[in-house]
């Protein structure tokens, strides 16, 4: 079914293209969101990645799976976006982050929603400490549930290299969160 859709999409069939976008928009957006930490930017980059995938369909080898291929395009697009970003984060960005956004009336339980947003913020903050490629590896392993072999296909890294990157990413995030906890503790003691 997917192979037929891909063949039709390659020939420019609009329905097949729409079906492919519909199928892969969620994993692509999720990866972008985890890598960029900003909903609006993630939507924009996810669209860009999906369009790139559609326009480069002639380069796709049908003997491979499509999902790692499209995620690879999404990861590379996010890495380019992160490289284009200014090194100093702006305070204005915090408001744009999906983790900080608040939509009154959307949830029946506002307290739980606030806790969820805080948890999301903590996760995105920890992921933001990582190098772009490490973010890809973490996002694919934890949230896309890809195997080491699939992550290897997306990132061009060997399986031992992926395990090593995952370990170092966890360690870096652990050190960051420990530092954050120390800061919070010292702040509350001084207050």
């Amino acid at each position, binding site marked *: 079914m997917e192979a037929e859709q891909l063949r039709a999409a390659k020939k420019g069939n*609009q329905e097949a*293209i*729409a079906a492919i*976008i*519909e199928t892969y*928009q*969620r994993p692509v*957006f*999720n990866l972008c*969101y*985890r890598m960029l930490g900003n*909903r609006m930017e*993630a*939507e924009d980059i996810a*669209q860009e990645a*999906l*369009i790139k995938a*559609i*326009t480069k369909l002639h380069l796709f080898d049908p003997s491979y799976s499509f999902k790692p291929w499209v995620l690879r395009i999404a990861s590379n697009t996010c890495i380019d976006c992160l490289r284009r970003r200014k090194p100093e984060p702006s305070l204005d960005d915090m408001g744009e982050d*999906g983790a900080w*956004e608040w939509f009154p009336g959307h949830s029946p339980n506002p307290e739980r929603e606030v806790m*969820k947003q805080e*948890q*999301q913020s*903590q*996760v995105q903050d*920890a992921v933001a400490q990582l190098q772009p490629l490490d973010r890809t590896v*973490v996002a694919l392993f*934890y*949230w896309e549930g890809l195997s080491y072999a699939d992550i290897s296909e997306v990132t061009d890294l060997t399986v031992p290299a992926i*395990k*090593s990157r995952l*370990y*170092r990413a*966890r*360690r870096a*995030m*652990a*050190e960051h*969160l*420990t530092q954050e906890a120390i800061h919070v503790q010292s702040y509350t003691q001084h207050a």
Partner: protein
Amino acid sequence: MCNHTHNMHNETWFMRATEGDLSAEEMRQWEAHLERCDACRQMSEAMAAVDHMLRTAPPPPTLPDDFTQATMARLQRQQQRQRWLVIFASILIIAIIVWLGGSALTSALASLSRTAHILIVGRDTIINALMRTTIGLMVSWRAFLPFVVMLAAIAGLWLMPNSVLATLTMLWISKRRQEFTT
């Protein structure tokens, strides 16, 4: 920092423990090490907390309902822009080819024209000069006649074979002798 088992303070042990790659005996050694080593235990706990935080992270926000339509519209805009770019580039290339080709053709025609002009004018000039010389000679032949005759005589004498010259000289001498005797 623990001093009991130095070889456990490397990332290989942490990685194997996290991946569940340790044997039962190695696991027992690792747990014993963590009980004795505060730094490793704290790091192990912190990494376990990170692992838990990542696994239980709330899902990303939902996509807008019109995401597929918006992406399709953006794709179509992009394709249309590319089509226009291709058309514009094609027109530009054709215009350049025509311009360069026209220029080269004009240049070649001009060159041919110049060559033809030189040939025609050159031939006319030569004919003109020959005509002028011929007419000039025809008009002033009387003035030039003695000179021309002298030149012809010199040339005749110069080019005449010696035997002919000797015969003519003998005839002239014999004729002079007859005149002298009579």
